[in-house]
């Protein structure tokens, strides 16, 4: 099996390179899976944690805020996964004290910026999850609006009879999305943590 350097891995994540993503999955997922399962999680939790850790790293890369001085990609990935799982345990009111730490993590990686990115990712992930539950029509409409496509154009693309209808429909879609987000218990927990 080819061994990729940290630089190649980071570049691969930025480019969404399938080979690199497969490599990361094959190399490291089982360790995260083992850690989560040892600490009161299941297969699904492990998948979520792994997936979100990759997204957090991608966000950091996009912000040009990821340099491994004292760590490696593996160390960073494990540290992010561990932090994400600790947050989950906290939300589930499970004590951290009895944590079975099988991941080689580094405490000093938990800087303010990482925590900020993780929290942002948590909120945005939730919004995106609910956005995905909207009808394709609503999703497309909102995307066009957010991309500042002119109303006339939107009405034409979506096949609506006029701009006014497009605007009303957009409010309805957005209202539905916001209602779903607010009803989500995860969102309530996020708000509780913020206050």
């Amino acid at each position: 099996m080819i061994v990729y350097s940290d630089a190649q891995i980071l570049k691969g994540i930025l480019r969404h390179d399938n080979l690199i993503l497969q490599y990361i999955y094959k190399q490291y997922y089982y360790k995260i899976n083992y850690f989560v399962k040892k600490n009161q999680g299941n297969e699904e939790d492990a998948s979520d944690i792994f997936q979100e850790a990759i997204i957090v790293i991608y966000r950091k890369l996009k912000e040009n805020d990821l340099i491994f001085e004292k760590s490696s990609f593996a160390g960073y990935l494990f540290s992010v996964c561990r932090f994400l799982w600790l947050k989950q345990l906290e939300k589930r009111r499970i004590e951290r004290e009895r944590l079975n730490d099988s991941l080689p993590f580094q405490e000093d990686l938990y800087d303010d910026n990482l925590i900020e990115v993780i929290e942002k990712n948590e909120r945005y992930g939730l919004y995106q999850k609910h956005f995905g539950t909207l009808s394709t029509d609503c999703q497309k409409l909102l995307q066009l609006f957010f991309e500042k496509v002119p109303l006339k154009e939107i009405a034409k693309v979506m096949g609506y009879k006029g701009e006014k209808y497009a605007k009303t429909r957009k409010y309805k879609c957005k209202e539905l999305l916001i209602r779903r987000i607010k009803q989500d218990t995860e969102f309530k927990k996020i708000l509780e943590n913020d206050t």
Partner: protein
Amino acid sequence: MTPNVNYFELIEDYCQDQLDATTKAEFEAELEQDAKLRNEVKLRKEIQSAISELDVTNLREKLENVITQHQIAGPLQDTFDLFTDFTDFQEINEELSAEDLINFYDSMPKVHVYQHEVASNETIHRFYKEQEIELEEDINGLDDLEVEDLPGLEDAILEKDIIDFRQTLKQVAKSVEPQYTVKEIDEFLNEELEGSELEDFERELAQNNELNNELLLHKELEKSVKERDIIDLRNQVSQIMETETSWKVSEQDIEDFIEGKLEGEVLSDLETELFENQDLAAEIELRRQINEFIGESDIMELREELNAAKEFSEVSTVRKLIPSASKRIYQYIRTGAAVIVIVLGIASLLNSGYVSHDKTHDNFFSSPQWAPERSVNVDHLQQVKLAFMKGDHNMVLALKEDLPKGLQNDFVLNFYSAVSMHNLEKYSDAIANYSKVIDNGDNMYIEEAEWYRSLCYVKLNDKVKAKQELLAIVNKNGDYKHDAKAVLRRIKFSMK
């Protein structure tokens, strides 16, 4: 604020409304001018009122009795513990005149009046708040008490008004719509608000935290929806996790490990991974089982012999139909008779429906047994497996619907749900699910899925697809080759 002793009698009479009209008028004139006197009169009235609060005293006593009867300890005790500090005081048994009371400036009635003024109601409510839970539980027991003897007790315990009011407040809070609608917030964000509307909004924004949060949510929502790259990456990672194996060792290493050929660093790496990687452990176990199965040479030989015997019988039948040149005349007669017999036979078979699509399908379709060892995600499939083994195909499909989306694409699930659909005669749905298994491209169900799919096409009388599928099976030279040939032969007669 020492009271003027001369006024005591007057004050007493005035408070009890026993002064004659003239004295009363004079006293009231004095009262208007003399602030001290006014205070004295006020104090006197309050003391009277406090002393005359017999109903409250009675109620408290009776409540004590009720609580003693119900043996409620703990928080209730705490409330009455307030009185423990007063145990050092000597009880006054003799009757006191109002005059004596006034002389005791810091007397208990004054303390009571003060407390009563400040927080009489709160004290009562606090008491019931502490007891709310216990009293709710014991509320049925109150039926046995002489509630009618305790005026207001039931209401006080139930505090219906407070409960109702609290409920109303909750409803009001629920029913009150946010001050600004999604539309208005959107208009503000898109800079479409103008004039007084804009001013009002901005004024509200400066003071209203909730509106600020709402605005933040709208902004973040917009940004998150625009994050197409993140959404795509998440989907991509998710897909990889569904389709890829989650171990880093190569297939060759796994095979070598099973055969005991692996050594050195590679072996120790694999063993380390094996300790934490359950998927790898399952894969190794699966491969071991397959090896054991292949190793059953006696069964394999028997199967080969059976196939050989079958092929031989088919070849003999064909040979018998081809006449040899030396016995041509004689055999013409035999052949003619044989042809007639065969034609008659085929005709009767066609009439009896033996080679109809339905019969062909039914003769060749037999529902497979559940084989969990072919699956890695055994845990998730446990329930589906049980339903399938019981032959409850409707349940299999219902359970599949309930599984998380990620699992629904599992090829094992797709295969067995396709078989369930097949059994339930939902052939088109079954074809779609068999196709998913085949399209997955890397599993042990593909050959079976192709075979069963071809039978579905036969059942649906889709000649072209059935033929294509069956020919492909024959060409693959797999386990179903002979069966596929047989079906092809049959449909040749029936599908004209």
